[in-house]
């Protein structure tokens, strides 16, 4: 019984200098960690154990992390968190599109990784079915397209309208939940997952900034509507591209 209480993580990284201290840290954080140095070993462990989550380095000699990620997604529902380097921006996007649940950029804080692991595990436990990572593909609404890969908002004429990190996170939260009323607390929750430090200003402020950018008339908003006593909602159909 104790086994099922302790989530079993599979840590796949060819770099022993990262893998070993990370495994140590995660064990200390209350996870059961199995570590392997290459994709082949990872495949056998995946068959041998009931793995709850895979932490996967993208850049590995031999079969790389992306290929392994594809294999895992094709054969099971096990969630995957990718370890990426910033220079592998496209790999990150491909990884997410391949069905990875989240990613951290090297050099990452182990605390942050542990927090991400818990979020993904909680989500799996709650919903059962895994959901698509929101940060993939593009969302079209009322003539606008939010491209998550490049984190850019493009208008009807194809002009890119850059967004601040806060604005982007808020808009992403809204377009992935169209026509749902989201309270300020919910929005804070949804947008703080990433770059928490960059988002400590009031939601209302961010909303008014976003409105200025995407509404025809920011004084009488048609897209991001205020719900009396509730919060905000995106009043538009959203198409996932």
């Amino acid at each position, binding site marked *: 019984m104790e086994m099922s209480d302790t989530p079993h993580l599979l840590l796949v990284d060819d*770099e022993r*200098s*990262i893998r070993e*201290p*990370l495994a*140590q*840290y995660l064990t200390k954080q209350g996870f059961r960690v199995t570590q392997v140095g290459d994709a082949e070993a990872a495949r056998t462990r995946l068959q041998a154990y009931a793995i709850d989550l895979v932490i996967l380095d993208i*850049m590995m000699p031999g079969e790389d992390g992306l290929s392994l990620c594809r294999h895992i997604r094709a054969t099971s529902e096990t969630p995957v968190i990718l370890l990426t*380097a*910033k*220079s592998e921006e496209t790999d990150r996007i491909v990884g997410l599109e391949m069905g990875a649940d989240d990613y951290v950029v*090297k*050099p*990452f*804080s*182990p*605390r942050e990784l542990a927090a991400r692991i818990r979020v993904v595990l909680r989500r799996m436990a709650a919903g059962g079915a895994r959901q698509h990572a929101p940060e993939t593909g593009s969302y079209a609404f009322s003539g606008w397209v939010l491209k998550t890969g*490049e984190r*850019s908002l493009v*208008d009807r*004429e*194809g*002009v*890119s*309208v*850059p*967004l*601040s*990190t*806060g*604005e982007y996170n808020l808009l992403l939260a809204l377009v992935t939940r169209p026509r749902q009323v989201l309270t300020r607390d919910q929005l804070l929750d949804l947008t703080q997952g990433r770059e928490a*430090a*960059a*988002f*400590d*200003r009031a939601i209302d402020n961010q909303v008014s*900034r976003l409105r200025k*950018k995407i509404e025809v008339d920011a004084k009488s908003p048609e897209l991001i509507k205020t719900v009396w006593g509730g919060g905000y909602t995106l009043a538009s159909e959203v198409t996932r591209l």
Partner: protein
Amino acid sequence: MTIRRFLPSSLTGQIALLVALALFVAQAINFGLIFRERQALRFNQVTAPAITRVVDAIERLRAGRTLVIPRLDRQGNPRRERRGGRVDLVQANPIPAGLDPAADVEDGIRTALTELGLPHGQIVTGVRQIRSNDPRLATYSTKRAERLKRFGGELMIAVEIPGEGWLTLSTPWPRGARDVIWRLAAQTLIFYIIVLIPLLWIGRRITRPLKSLATAAREFRPGEEAQPVEERGPDDVRAVIAAYNGMGARVTAMLDEKDRMLGAIGHDLRTPLAALRVRIESVDDDADRARMAEIIEEMNRMLDDILSLARLGRPSEPATEVDLAALVDAVVEDFRDIGADVTLEDSPRIRARMRPALMRRAVRNLIENAVKYAGGAEVRLTTPPGSVAIEVCDRGPGIPQDKLGAVFDPFTRLEGSRNRDTGGIGLGLSLARAIVREAGGRIALANRDGGGLIATITLPR
């Protein structure tokens, strides 16, 4: 110097001009030869007989013989057609004024008469053009009319014999030199057409591929996948194009190699950094650990800067239409989110073509400097004609006037700021300048009135 301005500068133009000049000289020589030959021919056919007849007539006159030897036809009547062909003696100069004189004939007659010691007064000649429908032709014999028509002119000669009157005679006269000039001009024109058309064609065959080669070389951007230039034209030109294409491929391959190497370096340096970042989690002292994490983060940023600067020659991000006002606003907003004192003047939408992530970085680096050295920044967007300027102003210590240019060089930091606390290795401005230049713009620093620095990015629009 001034002549040079009128000379064609293109290859085809120069060859065409040269060939035209050569043809012209050849034709001029040709013309000279033909002209001399005609002169000689005329002398033999026209001038010499005319002189002989004049001399003969004078001698006969002096001998008291009749001028005209009456030729009788078969019936014994004098033949009419001798008129015009014979030598007449008249009282006054019969040659109307205004006709072209034939100077060589006048000279010839004068010389002959002088040599023979025959007395003579004025010698007048005149050439009359004969058209095919000339009414006077009817008064001549058919044979003579034919000759006159063929020659196209009639030379009238009058020699004053003192005490006797004027001896006159006429003879067919070949068309003038003007005619020859026209014919030669037409000939030259035909030559030009025959020679220059193929010449221009071959010129185009050479210059068109050269032109596309020049265009390709000018627009060669190492970062972008370039289409090889089509190999066409003569073999020599093909060889040049093939060599160029080969060179372009080698440059691209070298840059690819550099990219791969930088990627490997980046990966190899990040790995120990990542390992270190994981290991410091076991440090118990929170303050210590936070400081270590900060240093690792800073090293990582430097690595990013170095890699970005090195990779700028081959940006992976495509250029798109961007709302520059929103871009600057987004950067400013990110600074405000972390509590930095950065203000932005409201600006209308400004469309420009650029690589947004790189431009964000350039603007961010400028604002970062202002925040670092002056504790805050005022950002402004202005639109001078044809361009757009992003101004980042601060009230910091500024930069000594003589160092304003040097701070853009990589790894340059001013003595006063060589301080680990401020971080960075002086790549921020170099990177910003490289990004702005790649976008076709300029970046400048100036000290502000009243203290502080103003950094301006100017982009074409």
